[in-house]
């Protein structure tokens, strides 16, 4: 692509400039458009099993390590530190929303939908720590997540507004050059961004951008807009890595059975684990 406007030297210079600018200007990095992905029906082929390698599911903002909630699990299941994935520092909460965020954090274990095996929503499904798969066809794109068997259909070039509220939102996609842009609306107010109590309302509007930066890497960006909770739109970004195992596949994580005792145990009239 770059070759068209110049020689190899120019290309190299631009790549270097891009890398230099990337390193300087944005500590979180940014998709370079110099990589041209393999094609599927003329579009970048994003098929594959992808996974974020970060601790954003603990807290999308930067955070230090801290004691986990289950003392008996000590160092094995304490909170891992993270650089954060939010561009530009703290989330721009409205004052009253910040109060609720802090309450959420305090009551995390009883309030976090993840604990109950509820669908993670978008963008949380992307960085929940489990792989997700993109099945891309020339028409539409299906994204499927290991957690809670969640999935969503990305309707390409659709003008149809969300007919209802959905845990995984209502996704409409389009191609902008090398980038798959997914516009997600139609959310419930039931999902969170992380285990730190970061939340949103039904007014959530997410614009995701998936760009291949190499054969085995995607650059992921999500712009979050929710005027009832935040004073301005904000953005998170992170690399996604292809799962390279020869037999890579999504496995079952049917977590309902791991949440039932927690959710219904207090209503049971005999121990639930009893085998019949």
């Amino acid at each position, binding site marked *: 692509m770059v070759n068209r406007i110049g020689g190899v030297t120019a290309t190299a210079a631009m790549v270097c400039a891009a890398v230099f600018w990337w390193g300087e200007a944005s500590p979180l990095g940014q998709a370079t458009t110099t990589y041209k992905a393999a094609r599927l029906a003329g579009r970048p082929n994003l098929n594959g099993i992808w996974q974020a390698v970060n601790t954003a599911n603990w807290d999308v903002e930067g955070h230090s390590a801290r004691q986990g909630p289950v003392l008996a699990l000590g160092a094995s299941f304490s909170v891992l530190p993270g650089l954060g994935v939010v561009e530009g520092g703290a989330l721009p909460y409205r004052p009253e929303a910040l109060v609720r965020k802090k309450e959420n954090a305090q009551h995390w274990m009883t309030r976090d939908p993840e604990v109950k095996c509820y669908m993670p929503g978008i963008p949380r499904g992307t960085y929940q720590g489990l792989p997700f798969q993109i099945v891309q066809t020339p028409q539409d794109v299906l994204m499927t997540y290991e957690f809670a068997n969640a999935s969503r*259909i990305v309707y390409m070039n659709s003008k149809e507004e969300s007919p209802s509220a959905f845990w995984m939102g209502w996704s409409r996609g389009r191609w902008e050059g090398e980038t798959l842009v997914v516009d997600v609306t139609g959310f419930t107010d039931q999902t969170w961004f992380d285990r730190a109590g970061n939340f949103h309302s039904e007014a959530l509007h997410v614009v995701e951008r998936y760009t291949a930066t190499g054969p085995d890497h995607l650059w992921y960006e999500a712009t979050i807009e929710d005027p009832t909770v935040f004073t301005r739109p904000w953005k998170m970004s992170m690399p996604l890595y292809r799962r390279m195992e020869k037999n890579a596949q999504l496995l079952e994580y049917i977590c309902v059975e791991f949440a039932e005792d927690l959710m219904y145990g207090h209503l049971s*009239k005999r121990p639930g684990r009893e085998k019949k």
Partner: protein
Amino acid sequence: MCGRSHVVLGALIAVCFGSTLLSGQNAATALRTPWGEPDLQGLWDIKTITPLERPLALGTKEFYTEQEAAERERLAVDRATDEARGADARADVAGAYNDFWWDRGTKDVQTRRTSLIISPPNGRIPWRPEAMARNAERARVRDAMLDSSNPISTWLDVDTGERCITDGIPWTPGAYNNNYLIVQSKGSIAILHEMYRELRVFSVGDRHRVNIPQWFGNSSARWDGDTLVVETDNFADKSALWWPAAWRQARPAYKIVERFTRANADTLVYEFTVTDPTLFASPWTAQIPMRRTDEQLFEYACHEANYAMPSMLGHKTAK
């Protein structure tokens, strides 16, 4: 595309007019993905009033007459009303919802076959006698439990479907959420079932078998001519749980082979063969037409909205 040749045009005509199952096999050759695989993509609906098993009273009768099928369909339309009530209070309450919630269909399969099971010839599941006896005993225990003053003591007294996990595979027509979305990319095929949002992704041609027992087993998929063949085994042992139908509970001895064939533009034939020497005297096979639908498939947040579970567990027995 239509104008490229008379052959293609002929194929399209056949697609449009081929009506009986599998009669459009030749036409199906025109339905291919850009990379040359048979194209199974679309949103497919399997609802029908044809039962999995042939009612015993029908004996060896393999097909309904046109008149019989018309009468069955008329009755199905009559039943599909908000005014329908159970035979008695218990049946009515067990029905749980009025008809607004159901989407069972009102049509028999096009062949007017009396059962979805095509083999053995009696259209019935060939249970081993000892398995049949065990089913009867389980049913007796369950009925006694449901009739007791403490019908549901824990969530494990509720079947896997009501727990929003699964009814099991292979798939058969149900009371609602009979939609299946198939998308295909080079080398992989994903099938999203609206019920419990069950999703299976098959890597075609590659034996990506792993030795990990799962609720949905481990599948491998391949093309056999224009038919997608999916073999699944290595199911987790979940046989201690209550399942909506005992024949498809996940258990180690269970093996299924599913075959998907694009019969024509509007029909995909779904056929499965079930094997389990511990339960069945022989393998058996069912065939279910999947019809293209213009409806949409939506997210089914079953567990997320399973208010019935705490209600059932917290109930007080009605006097």
